[in-house]
């Protein structure tokens, strides 16, 4: 039996940690199918829009200073944005997988 104060303190620490883990898990709601779909869609579209917008802005800026680059940067950044969108979706998927795995560990 744990009698001396050191061991008891150790036990108390372990209990605190276990309790904390329990709280963390129970406060994390599992994502619904609809939520996942919406998440992926916004991540992908937002990145493409952002990339295209940046390219458009750079073209506009160069045009302002007399370099007629339009539509070179728009095209290049559109594709970079598409790449960033796929990266975002991949990261979102990793995150959701981790959440689901954490949910399954609980059961």
């Amino acid at each position: 039996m744990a009698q001396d104060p050191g061991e008891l303190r150790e036990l108390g620490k372990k209990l605190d940690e276990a309790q904390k883990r329990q709280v963390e898990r129970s406060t994390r709601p599992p994502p619904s199918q609809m939520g996942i779909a919406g998440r992926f869609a916004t991540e992908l579209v937002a990145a493409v829009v952002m990339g295209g917008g940046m390219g458009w802005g750079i073209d506009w800026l160069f045009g302002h200073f007399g370099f007629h680059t339009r539509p070179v940067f728009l095209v290049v950044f559109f594709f970079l944005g598409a790449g960033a969108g796929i990266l975002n979706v991949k990261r979102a998927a990793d995150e959701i997988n981790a959440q689901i795995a954490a949910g399954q560990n609980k059961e």
Partner: protein
Amino acid sequence: MNPMEQFTVKPAFGLDHPLFLLGGHPIYFTNQAFLMILVVVLSALFLTFAVKPGRLVPTRGQSMAEVSYEFVANMIHSATGEDGLKYFPFVFTLFIFVLASNFFGMIPGSFTVTSQIAVTLALACLVVGLVIVVGFMKHGLGFLKLFVPHAPWYLLILLIPIEVISFLTRPISLSVRLFANMLAGHTMLAVFGGFVVSLGAAGGLISGLAIAPMLLIVAIMLLELLVAFLQAYVFAILTCIYLNEALHLHDHH
């Protein structure tokens, strides 16, 4: 009956006279401004006066305030660790503001502040701005390493712009998620509400059918309460995750 009418920003209380001119543009006191002030004032008053130290058995209000405090504190601790707790006031304020706005929007006849992209985008830009400031304050120029993945140099030419775009996407995806969820939910409620009215006005036996969309509204209302909480939670937890990245600079690979 237009289901989108509920999202119109218009001067509050029929105050058609602009408050002042800003660079030639009239500035009105709108229903949105009113609701935002109401949300801030009421939640601040509630959280201040619900808690009294030295009460042995907490009242309902005190329990609510304490539970929300612990909830956010746990969230920050699990997402960012010990040193993220410095940013507790920011995350807590953000969470309570979004949560209270969502719940105030659920009151029939009121106005949902978070269904305006202007509001959510401003909040998201605030979050990402803070993340950038914290990152540079903590790591100096080393913060820029966040945008450099482990890859051969010839791929970095391609990957760094992609990482930068991916980072800049955050305010958009963060704000669009909250905005779209609130917009979709409230539009759905208004559409089904329109069904009830038009079926009820049809007369005769058909009027009795109005009970079906009515029951559906009750169900959607419950779902929307869940969404209202969930979206506030998602907004806050993503803030924590972004802060964590700025604080600890661990890359994704």
